[in-house]
């Protein structure tokens, strides 16, 4: 695997190159997209991006955990966790290189 890290700056630059708005506005638009996704999830509404994947919120119940250092039992409170399920298209795209036979999208 390569092992570079892509950040907001890279994504903002890609939007800038692709759409031709200013760099500043491109960065703002990226931020707005992330905020819209966040808001939807905070409201409990899953986000489904075709050919990419879906994000949904799952409610976890309370359970008893243990402090691994002291062995002490501590309750883990009920909480919400975010689950990302990649689409078949994304999974195929990631495995295409690795497979000997071609993968169709």
């Amino acid at each position, binding site marked *: 695997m*390569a*092992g570079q890290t892509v950040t907001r700056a890279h*994504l903002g630059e890609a939007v800038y190159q692709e759409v031709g*708005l200013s760099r500043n506005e491109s960065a703002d*638009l990226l931020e707005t997209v992330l905020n819209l996704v966040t808001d939807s999830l905070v409201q409990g509404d899953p986000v489904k991006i075709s050919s*990419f994947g879906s994000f949904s*919120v799952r409610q976890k119940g309370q359970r008893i955990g243990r402090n691994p250092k002291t062995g002490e039992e501590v309750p883990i409170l009920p909480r919400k*966790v975010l689950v990302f399920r990649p689409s078949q298209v994304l999974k195929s795209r990631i*495995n295409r290189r*690795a497979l000997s036979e071609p993968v169709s999208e």
Partner: protein
Amino acid sequence: MTKSELIARLAAANPHLYQRDIERIVSTIFDEISAALARGDRVELRGFGAFSVKSRGSRVGRNPRTGEAVQVSEKHIPYFKTGKQLREKLNTGG
């Protein structure tokens, strides 16, 4: 929220932009993330989360119908780890 609803909301927040550009912005973002993962890169969006690729080693699987052993080759799985800020928002805002 679907991709088209996301596009509609982004358009509503940016009435001065063309619909065509709004669509390209949204597609570019998710295409770039996909392309990075396909290269084996990580995508880290502070406060939101990080996408990475995990590999699952090759193993001997079994055809559940016939019980026959089959070799399953190594494969790569996209993985998302929720960012700290987003995790906190999910547990306070909802």
